[in-house]
């Protein structure tokens, strides 16, 4: 996993609540057996004017000029700004894969669906929770200033605005540690293999019907 320490990038605003993972990456692209290559189909139904197909070339497809990521002022955006309950619905990890593959490193929203939030950390994508009022203000600042950028500092748990204002955010220590260091949590869990085996032996006695061999 890619480590995340400090990132500065252009902010793209998606001003709607309840953006679901079907919207982030529609189902036909879930047929892939790979982890990469989802970027060109991120927000496919909003981004293009036709229906996308898996494994197809997207370069000649008609773009929806109204969609935020197609507007030149947001070219190269790597920080996504959204409203509440971002990433609701399906558990598909293809959603953070697609955001990351497109080039996003952080999302800022007032709240997230639990599974999406969790999946993001496993893929070097930082979901930041900020108050409704602050998110609202960031939407206004983004709209008012072309090329608006934010700096996300995970080490110090702050979002820094162009004026130098530092907005603090909360993040779980373990997740922060893994993300800062790009750690694979399977390796960490396996350090507790003996404890897992002990638990399992006890469970084999208390609930033998759960074990078939």
């Amino acid at each position, binding site marked *: 996993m890619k480590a995340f320490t400090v990132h500065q990038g252009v902010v793209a605003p998606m*001003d*709607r*609540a*309840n953006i*679901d993972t*079907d*919207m982030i990456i*529609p*189902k*036909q692209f*879930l*047929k*892939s*057996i*790979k*982890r990469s290559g989802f970027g060109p189909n991120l927000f496919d*139904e909003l981004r293009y004017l036709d*229906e996308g197909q*898996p*494994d197809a070339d997207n370069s000649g497809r008609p773009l929806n000029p109204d969609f935020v990521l197609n507007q030149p002022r947001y070219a190269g955006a790597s920080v996504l700004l959204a409203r*509440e*309950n971002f990433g*609701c*619905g*399906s*558990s*598909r*990890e293809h959603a*953070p894969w697609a955001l990351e593959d497109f080039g996003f490193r952080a999302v800022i929203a007032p*709240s*997230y*669906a*639990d*599974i999406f939030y*969790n*999946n993001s950390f*496993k*893929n070097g994508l930082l979901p930041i929770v900020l108050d409704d009022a602050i998110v609202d203000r960031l939407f206004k600042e983004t709209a008012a200033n072309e090329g608006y950028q934010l700096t996300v500092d995970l080490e110090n748990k702050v979002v820094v605005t162009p004026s130098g204002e530092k907005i603090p955010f909360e993040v*779980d*220590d*373990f997740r922060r540690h893994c993300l800062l260091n790009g750690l*694979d*949590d*399977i390796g960490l*869990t396996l350090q*507790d*293999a003996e*404890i*897992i085996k002990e*638990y*399992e032996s006890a*469970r084999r006695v*208390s*609930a*033998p*019907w*759960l*074990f*078939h*061999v």
Partner: protein
Amino acid sequence: MAGKTLYDKLWDQHVVKMRDDGTALIYIDRQLLHEVTSPQAFEGLRIAGRKPWRLDANLATPDHNVPTTPVERESGIDGIQDPVSRIQVKTLDDNCDHFGITEFKMADKRQGIVHVVGPEQGATLPGMTVVCGDSHTATHGAFAALAHGIGTSEVEHVLATQCLIQRKMKNLLIKVDGELGKGITGKDVVLHVIGLIGTAGGNGCAMEFGGSAIRSMSMEGRMTMCNMAIEAGARVGMVAFDEITAEYVKGRPYAPKAEQWEMALEAWADLKSDDDAVFDKVVEIRAEDIKPQVTWGTSPEMVTTIDGSVPTLDDAADDVERSGFTRAYEYMGLTAGQKITDIKLDRVFIGSCTNSRIEDLRAAAEVAKGRKVAGSVKQALVVPGSGLVKAQAEEEGLDKIFVEAGFEWREPGCSMCLAMNADKLGSGEHCASTSNRNFEGRQGYGGRTHLVSPAMAAAAAIAGHFVDVREF
């Protein structure tokens, strides 16, 4: 000291290790696998040179991509027309063969939607922790199990370690007391709940469904309710263990037998929230207040009753909701104030992990019996949840009722719930669907989904528009 909730008990029983930061390693008793969210997890194991921790805790079946027409199914995997789907189904077979994981392959009678197959096989049992790379894993909580939908990285983590890293959630109780009216099902109850608390209402919570209306509900109804806990934002849905649970589980292939059955019953008896348990939040609902539900918009919380209308902008709580309504009117091709019974249907879908079990098919068949699908409806599909549900329905003659009424009787799979196979809506088409999500494009590019119960879907198919099944 206050008593414990069902979630507290299941959590305590599965903590392997508490970490300093408040997260815990939770032991996983059962992992269900399907073709969409597992290939990258198996690839991860291979790259790291790891093996599954415990083979017999896993059970796999392909469901999302499988074709449902008998013709396409006859020639097995090679017969799958879509080459990308074919590779994904084949990859699941290859991975299960390679690692030695039990799989009900496409041609197996026991194949079906993973959330139908698990309970049907007794592979989901009370007191278990169950995970699957699918958000509708909440379904299994109907058995007083702790079931989490997880992402692919977590699928790999569970394969490799038999554990999940979790932070304890809050306890939310949805208490439904009283008697449900005639024709009101678990689907109507859960849609009513989602309408009440919203799609984010259960975020961060384990949601238990309790109260007398739940106690008298069948396992199928309970599974439908827990299935859609995620549409209210709760990753976990649950119902306490009782005689109805025991009756359903008894005798199933993976269920405990003989003296182990007695031992299990004793262990399971306490799988309920204590009378003095403290919940972080309680929502009380009177069963009598619940009418047949129909979603009008593009989020499950955009729901109303069969005698209702599409809400107006005045009904929205704030600007964010107003803009959501405006977008939904446009996408759905509806106008504010339009009566629900005036919505005409192009297609009808009866199936999905929410509503494809035998009781669902019986309810739909009862409505369809001796009637005909309206000429204006292009297609009405009935897709059983598993090969065994299909066989049972055929034994009861339900297939004949459907076919005579003009429905298509299909092979088991997820089908038009998410349209990863050939079953999908055309752009602009309205569908009465027994599935769980009415998101934009969910059932097909530009498709318009209305979520309803199986009986309501069948009645809509006959009438060509929504009708109140209680008066049908």
